[in-house]
């Protein structure tokens, strides 16, 4: 429990290796999946779609339910709190 766990401020993915971080830079707050080639955070709808697809493809969850799950997952993330208020 003592180890520090850094997670993406957009989707919550644990970031452990440099390649997990945007631009491979461990000081970046977001993961490589939630950012573009310049390290900029992707628009909300795009991050929502990426996460919804992850639910769908991994467990066969319906697109509608996957979208709901993705929305619930992102709701409290630092990057999207304002978006949900």
């Amino acid at each position: 429990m003592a180890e520090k766990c850094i997670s993406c401020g957009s989707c919550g993915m644990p970031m452990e290796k440099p390649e997990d971080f945007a631009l491979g830079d461990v000081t970046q707050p977001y993961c490589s999946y939630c950012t573009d080639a310049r390290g900029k955070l992707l628009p909300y709808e795009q991050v929502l779609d990426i996460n919804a697809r992850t639910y769908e493809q991994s467990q066969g969850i319906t697109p509608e339910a996957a979208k709901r799950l993705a929305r619930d997952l992102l709701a409290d993330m630092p990057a999207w709190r304002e978006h949900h208020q």
Partner: protein
Amino acid sequence: MQAVTRQEQKIATRGRLVNAAMTLFARNGIAETTTADIAKAIRMSHGNVFVHFPTRDDLVIAVIDEFGRRLAVEFRQGLEDDLGLRAVLRAHLKVLAEFEPFYSRLVIEAPMLPPKVRSTLLMLHASVSYRLFAALERERKLGRARKIERPLLFNTWIGLVHHYLVNRDMFANGGSVIAEHGETLVQHFMTLVKS
């Protein structure tokens, strides 16, 4: 220097809260355990809990995240040693065994828990699904496994494991159902995917 000490204390307190929460969630149920119960268990003022975790759900998610972190470490170590599907299954079970009482409760209560807890658990499943499928594909290239769609591969495995966990009092005499039956489940699953 003092700031570092304060930060270390904060991390230690957070760890104590997560450990206490995991124990009480496992013993009394997730929905039934209150933040007051958790504070009392470690002799902390109730208000102090919210300094670290604004809501009870955040505490539940912190325990799930701890499980996910352990899983990531185990998968990474396993992948360095062995790229096989069997190793991935065993790594998954090893971490499940460590969290077994809590995780079993989580699986039982998941459909009734708040949406953000459920979405966190299912995202953790997604990472296991990814590892399983990647390992299966490696086995397929070696001619040792048949083609199985990713969702069904994962759902078959997790359905099997969850059945034993949810009914652990029926499959193990008070001990760990994973310790008792885990290897049998791995062998069975390997037989199912064999080409």
